[in-house]
């Protein structure tokens, strides 16, 4: 098991596997953790309904076919698929996270590899002032 995938808060590999199979027809074992993929998530969400997510890929433009985001604990783990035809390897958005979860950026390269970066975001029901 890749070191990057262990000990993350909110990890749920079984649920993630379902999402990976549905979206890519591949499983967690087919992913290669890569430092070229940088996934920026807040360590703690201000609001689970609105969590900024950003993916930057340090690879030449033509080598990145698509960027995917997954959240282990979401009922539908696949958050988005972004096909890049003319853009730089970058994607940012705001996503809903159901609870504290591991988040994955999966990058499809032109040569058919699936690169992985993981992060974890804590979502709480909160306290009061």
């Amino acid at each position, binding site marked *: 098991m890749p070191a990057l995938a262990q000990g993350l808060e909110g990890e749920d590999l079984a649920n993630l596997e379902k999402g990976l199979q549905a979206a890519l027809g591949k499983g967690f074992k087919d992913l290669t953790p890569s430092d070229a993929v940088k996934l920026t998530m807040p360590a*703690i969400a201000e609001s689970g309904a609105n969590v900024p997510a950003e993916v930057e890929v340090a690879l030449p433009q033509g080598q990145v076919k698509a960027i995917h985001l997954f959240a282990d604990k979401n009922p539908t783990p696949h958050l988005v698929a972004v096909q890049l035809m003319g853009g730089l390897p970058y994607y940012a958005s705001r996503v809903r996270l159901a609870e504290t979860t591991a988040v994955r950026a999966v990058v499809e390269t032109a040569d058919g590899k699936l690169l992985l970066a993981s992060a974890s975001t804590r979502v709480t*029901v909160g306290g*009061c002032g």
Partner: protein
Amino acid sequence: VTGRKALAQALERPEALYELPPYGDYTLLYYADLHGQLRPHYYMEPPNLLAPRPLMGRPGYLAGESFLRYYGLERGSLMAYIGTYLDFPTLARRFGPVGGAARLTALIKAQKEQVGGKALVLDGGDTWTNSGPSLRTRGEAMVDWMNLTGVDHMVYHWEYTLGRARVEELEKKLSAQVLSYNTTDDLFGDPVYPAYAVHPAGRYTLAVIGLTYPYVKVSHPEEFSEGLSFGVREKELQKVVDELRAKGVDAVVLLSHGGLPLDTALAQRVRGIDLILSAHTHDLTPVPLRVGRTFLVAGGSAGKVLVRVDLRLKKGGIASLRARTLPVLESLPEDPAAKALVEEVYRQNPDLLEPIARVESLLYKRDTLYSTLDELACRAIEAAHPEVEVVFSPGTRWGTTLLPGGVLTLDRVLAYTGSTYPEVYLFRMRGERLKATLEDIAANVFAPDPFFQQGGDMSRTYGLTYTLDPDAPSGSRILDVRVRGRPLEPDREYLVAAYGGRLQRAGVLVEGHTPRPVHEYILAFAKKEGRIDLKPRPNVRVLGRNYRIPGGEA
């Protein structure tokens, strides 16, 4: 140590307290967390501030004896009355009620005059709501008061519970400038407020940066701040500080609603902040704190004190400072305009001050786990809905204190329950979920890293008892949960009542129950009882800490 001793003595002679010899180049007059308290009242500091182990004994978690020890104060002194729960009823009778908008205004004006006007008046936030007058005027009474007091800058937190639209409406009237580097519009992430303001300070310049409470959306229903985002945004703060340094600003001050633990962490992690004026956790710092090269001064709460910080500036920073925590005592003069404003609000809302019941035991709000005012709210809900098995009451830091022999009024009830979402909900929730909720709140309160703390004290539970292990990992801090004395059954549904939070959204609402504000329950209960005599009955056992409630047998 001698400095602390000298300070302790000075605090015994109030006249020496308010007439300060000139010092330095520029003065900041700072108060925080007023929570709409316009009239003098009592406010007892918490008997316990349970800390995550790595933060034990640090400012932000100093209650009672440890507060006195840390700041070198004598038991029974004025500052012991202001800063601790110790001997509270006795000291309250000796020193009298604290706060009140009319005296706070007069004190601010007098201090400003003492320094020949070379001062900024700064409001640390949590000003516009949580009291009868503030809620009845939807914040306007507070804005009027700020305007006549001459506040220069403020930051927000509970202000947003008035709703974003109302906040923006009040801003049109507000003469103070709102500062925030960490409030952005959700459209494209643009800043909503100026991040800072730069002021000339004699031969030097001084910048004030504003930090809005980072977790507005976690602590309150999200719709109140729709379309806005907050967050700590440490890197952006560093950018702002660097930008000010590059401009040649001499002193950089952060007006922060981050709370003392988070502000301490920010002082460690962000370079170049000279002084943090800290709000939100309602702490008091009778002696200024120092973290690396950053000074920290907290602003107290409930109108209890005005903090005066005199700065001796130098090229590129603060050479030294003198900070004095000035209690707002009954013996101080009142500002006539502020007094008239307060009287007018109460004249228009005469029901607020009608006597409801006699108070025969000490009623207070603040503690990490339990308070007698929460007990009162929960008993009132139980009296109306005897079928309810568990009641939740929010662990807000704001509130008030009533002494034995006092009188309960709607004004005092709203001082600890008054919010824009006061409704009591009845709902069903599985045992497993109840425990998970407590774990989640505990994970929040006892997070060893202040960057992961969002919100106030633990929600209070009634009908439900448990053992708390603050040092256990997340998910295993809550042990031996019992409902009405019987072990919690994970698969059974419980009938729960809660107010002032969002817990009901995680359960299934009871059909046919129309939510009513909690203060209506308390009023009805107190009227029927005629007298309130609540011996503390703390319902949480704490492992690894000496958790005690005065008068409680736990």
